């Protein structure tokens, strides 16, 4: 890929959260491509007005233009995505399982596994999954973003099993306006899910780390 393509992020979903991330990424100087379940021309109707500068593409094409692909669709629609095209990509899971809006999805409902583990199992083995951005509201993604080094910047947890991918996405989080805090593996990413004290809390890094360590010490082995 060219240097430009390497700074390109693809986003599945042009909804509330997809648009917010697209805007932040554009601001940070990334190239952005977006796909929905509809044809590119229909997605373009949205991106033209809400995120000028973003390229609307067909879903099947998205992963071919971007080394980083963000999943910003409702979790219940995960399996409709062209998941096989994600081989070799860094995939960012910003999705949450929340029954009052998702309904009951049997794989996710037991909560035995962190939702990202189930997402990872649906991806090709060579895709490297990182979870972040899920625990902040879409308004806050734009409202709370601050340049690197700003005092009082909000922390975002970053979880993943591949350290290179985690480092790349930590940089992405930083570029988009938040302090990345590594929270461990995908198996441990319960701490970022709905119901956790970190979810929706908008904390500064020190408070975030403190809450994280309190959670870890409270954890009872399953």
């Amino acid at each position, binding site marked *: 890929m060219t240097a430009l393509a390497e700074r390109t992020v693809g986003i599945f979903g042009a*909804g509330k959260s997809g648009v917010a991330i697209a805007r932040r990424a554009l601001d940070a100087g990334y190239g952005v491509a977006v796909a929905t379940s509809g044809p590119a021309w229909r997605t373009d*109707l949205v991106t*033209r*007005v*809400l995120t000028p500068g973003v390229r609307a593409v067909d879903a099947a094409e998205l992963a071919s233009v971007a080394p980083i692909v963000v999943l910003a669709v409702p979790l*219940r629609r995960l399996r409709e995505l062209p998941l096989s095209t994600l081989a070799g990509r860094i995939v960012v899971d910003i999705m949450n399982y929340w029954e*009052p809006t998702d*309904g009951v999805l049997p794989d996710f409902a037991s909560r035995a596994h962190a939702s990202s583990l189930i997402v990872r199992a649906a991806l090709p083995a060579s895709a490297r999954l990182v979870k972040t951005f899920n625990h902040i509201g879409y308004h806050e993604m734009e*409202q709370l973003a601050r340049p690197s080094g700003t005092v009082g910047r909000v922390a975002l947890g970053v979880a993943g099993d591949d350290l290179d991918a985690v480092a790349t996405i930590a940089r992405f989080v930083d570029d988009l306006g938040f302090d990345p805090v590594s929270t461990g593996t995908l198996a441990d990413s319960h701490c970022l899910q*709905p119901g956790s004290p970190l979810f929706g809390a908008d904390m500064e890094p020190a408070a975030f780390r403190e809450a994280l360590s309190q959670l870890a010490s409270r954890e009872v082995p399953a």
Partner: protein
Amino acid sequence: MEIGAFTFADIAVRGGVRPPQRIPELIEEIVLADEVGLDVFGIGEHHHPGFSAPAPPVILAAAAARTHRIRLTSAVTVLSSDDPVRVFEQFTALDLVSQGRAEAMVGRGALLDSFRLFGHDLQDYDALFDEKLDLLIRLRGDEPVTWQGRFRPPLDEEVILPRPVQTPLPVWVAVGGSPNSVIRAAAHGLPMVLGTVGGVAAQFAPLADLYRQALDHYDKPAQPVSMTLHGFVADTSQKAADVYFPADAELFNTAGASRGIAGMTAEHMAAKNGPGSTYAVGSPQAVIDKLLHHHEVIGHQRTMLQLAVGPLPHADIMRAIELLGTEVAPVVRAEIARREGGGDSATGVGAR
């Protein structure tokens, strides 16, 4: 600018006012809203223990019999889990009782209790709404309807009788920030309700723009935009905050609206009321300033405040309605008419 209020007929889940007391109180609130000159009152359908109006048209019809001028709307009707024929019949009945003051605000629903209750599959979330909206629109027309879909039996040359007083019966599409829903409303050429439960107004302005551009794209005539928001008026801003935010937080924590955010407090909710925010909780002057700011950035034609979010005392709601109708609305309407060059502030709404 039209100004109104709406509610889900909230009750306390544990203890407090029960529906047999709350619903008659709500009727009195609508009667007062009519007397003080509010333009519209809405009741939202929910199938959830904290809310007591799963059947809004029934309650609205009772209010219709005691009011004269105010428009009466659902806010919203969860069309995805209802039968469009039945929805049309019920709002026709409301239109006949109210002599042409009924409106239906249709949406996909934010909480999904109705899907469980009526046996719909969430995988069909979008398909259900698309199909049912399409049928509802056809039923409003004058032509006999021949129709076939996935989710209800086909219709062959049906005309649903009786017909409403208004032709066509006003139907608004409610959207919650999802661009796709905005496009859908525009593609059908229906007026749009922009539902807000937080954030700053400036973040919603692009959606109103998207709506106007999409209407253009689909060659549809201009349509009004309505904004719904969390708001409350009391004699002082302190009093408004003391009444509104604890109940708002309680609702958030119990209704699943929080999406897993633990323990929202009154302080959290109060923080949503800052400068530029969609929240409009305060003294009459504070609310006037907020509504004028909203209009400046969104350019909408109707504003509806969700006056009681969570269980609030009837007396406080009555006072809020009185202040909204007598102190807030006249000033906001006059200022917007002045900004728009002295025209009739309600012009846009008549277009539906």
